[in-house]
C-alpha cells in the first residue's frame, strides 16, 4: 500500500489512485508520419522502466487530478510529486 503525496490532498493511500502509465512517453504528435512498424512500437512497447520513472496517477477518489509521481519500480519507493500532470 504505497503512500502517495498528492500535491493537492497530501498523503493518501495508493487505493485512492489509478495508475495511468509512464509520463515520459507522449503520444506522437502526428501518427501519420510514423511507419507502421514505428507506430506499433509506440502502441505495444511500454517503457517498463526498472528504476526511477515518472508516472501518471489519477487521484480518482480525491481531487480528481492526474498527478506526476516519481517511483522506483525496483522498490516502489516514491518521491515527492514533481509537478502536476494537468493545467493547474
Amino acid at each position, binding site marked *: 500500500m504505497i503512500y502517495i503525496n498528492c500535491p*493537492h*490532498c497530501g498523503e*493518501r*493511500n495508493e487505493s*485512492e489512485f489509478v495508475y495511468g502509465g509512464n509520463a515520459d512517453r507522449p503520444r506522437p504528435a502526428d501518427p501519420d508520419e510514423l511507419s507502421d512498424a514505428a507506430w506499433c512500437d509506440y502502441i505495444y512497447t511500454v517503457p517498463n522502466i526498472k528504476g526511477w520513472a515518472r508516472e501518471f496517477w489519477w487521484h480518482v*477518489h*480525491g*481531487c*480528481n487530478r492526474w498527478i506526476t509521481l516519481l517511483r522506483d519500480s525496483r522498490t516502489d519507493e516514491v518521491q515527492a510529486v514533481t509537478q502536476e500532470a494537468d493545467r*493547474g
Partner: protein
Amino acid sequence: MQGYEVSIEIPPRRGLLDLRGNAAIRLICNEQLGGDLPLAANRLACLPGNKLAYCISPDHWLLQVEEGDEGPVLRSLEQAAGQTFHAFTDVSDLYAQIRLSGPDVREVLVQGVSIDIHPRVFPAGSTARCEFAKTTAQLTCLETASVFEIAVYSSYQRYAIDWLTQAQGR
C-alpha cells in the same frame, strides 16, 4: 450493548453545484457569491446566504446551496461567467448526503476511510474528498467534532447506508 453508538440519518436535501474554472472564474464566482471559494483542495468555506463551498482541487468546487436555489444561483453564475472558459453544472441529484452523529462516529468511519480523521488532524470544519468503503465520498466534519456528513454518488447511497449500518455492528 453491542455495536457502536452512532446514528445515521439522511439530512434535508440541498442544492449542489459543481463549479470548474481557473482563477478568473474564481474571482467572478467570489464576487457573485459574496465570499471566497477556498483555494486549496479539501478546504471548506461558509459563504453568505447559507452556502458552503468545498474545494476539490484548485479549479474545482462543490457549492452547496439551499434546496431550490441551485437553479437561480447557477443562472446568475453562468451569466457572470459569460464567455470565460468554465463549466458549471447542477449536481443536486448527483450526490446524496448521509449524516452521522454520536460518540463512536470515528470508530465507524475508520473502518472505511483511509485518511487520518483523528480530531487533532480533522477537527470540526474539515472536509476531504477521499475513498470511503470502496467508493468516493466528500467527508465533512461539522461544527461539533462528532457530527459528520458524507456525500456519495447517489446510486451508492443505499449501499453506503447499508455499509454504515453494518460497520455500526448493531
